């Protein structure tokens, strides 16, 4: 399930992109799974075709999705890449976390609130044994 908010300050393209990324990360979408067609997703969300097409192009550039004639867009990436993530990946994630934490601080969220949010999201992406995804 992909959810967007029209009144969010985050652009729609980014919301779609991160929603699909999350679906891939949680295993809701597995490698080889077909994505909805651009037309279908745009109709269901009631937004412009070009917005969805741009999000798909960005996902392609990220290497998570591939589009082939007659096959449409399919999930490309393996959900978990074996081996240690590279230092550059760690650095990129650290910067993203820092941005999120700064936003939280500016929005007057307490450290406990942020911790609570992170715990919820962590348990969605890395469920403990016996816990449903």
């Amino acid at each position, binding site marked *: *399930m*992909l*959810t*967007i*908010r*029209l*009144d969010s300050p985050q652009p729609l393209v980014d919301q779609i992109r991160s929603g*699909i990324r999350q*679906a891939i990360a949680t295993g*809701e*979408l597995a490698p080889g799974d*077909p*994505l*909805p*067609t651009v*037309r*279908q*997703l745009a*109709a*269901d*969300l*009631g*937004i412009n075709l070009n917005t969805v097409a741009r999000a798909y192009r960005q996902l392609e550039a990220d290497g998570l999705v591939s589009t082939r004639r007659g096959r*449409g867009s399919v999930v490309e990436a393996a959900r978990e890449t074996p081996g240690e993530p590279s230092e550059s990946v760690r650095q990129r994630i650290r910067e993203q976390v820092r941005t999120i934490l700064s936003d939280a601080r500016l929005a007057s969220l307490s450290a406990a609130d942020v911790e609570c949010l992170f715990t919820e999201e962590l348990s969605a992406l890395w469920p403990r044994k016996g816990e449903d995804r």
Partner: protein
Amino acid sequence: MRYFNFFFPLSMILFPLIFSLFVRSHPDPRDPDPKATVARVARLRRWLWMGTAAAVFVFLGAYLFISPRGASFLWILAFPLWFAITVPLLQAKDRGWLMTERPQARAATLERRDVAPSGLAIVRLLAWILWLALFVLALWPFLTGQSEWNTAWFLMFSAFGAGWLLMGGLGTRLSVLEAEPMDVGGSPELARGYESLRRYKIWGWFGVSTMAMLAFSLPPVLLARDPEGWLYAAIWVGAGGGAFVGLLGGVFGVTADVRRTRLNRLYQDLAEGTTVGGA
């Protein structure tokens, strides 16, 4: 044919009024001005009664005093009655008939919907084989000089038959692509409803298009066999079949609309009761 010329246009003209009588009112609890809505429903209902009476009057006048055959074309009066009065009336009675402004929080499934029900491809292929068989049956006496009937009629009927099958395929595709907005809670009831409606539309399109293909493909076969004796039979197959397909299509379209309305209402109820991150 006389009865057909009388009853078909009359039933078409009366249909919007009769249908509207069967649609129950579903007052919107969030309607800011329910009294105004009730007044609007009453006003539109009055217009529909008057419009239908006027259309029946025009039809009967034309049928009795001008030309029964010409009057049969007045069935098209059903269109303004339906689109200009009945649809706004239905929307005022039940907001499910109108997809109101969608909420700021929107959701969609990530499953692709371009997969037709299993077996449909085979059934569709059989329909094309049937069309081809009828085409050859109609063409054969024509090619061997056993029949001298009009080439234009043969081509027109055959093209219409094939055209309907193509339209069935297109309709199926459009049915799958129709918007299926989800609530952010991902209601399984709504998802099941969409799936059921989709299956109904796909098979409905197939059924109507195949019946229409038969209605258009049978007359040339009959005419090719014996243009003299079968002429009236062929006209009956064409006219009767055409009317049957028209009614079948109408019933299919309206029942699909009723189902869609229920789902719209469910979606609107769910969407207004949910927010992102929880119900």
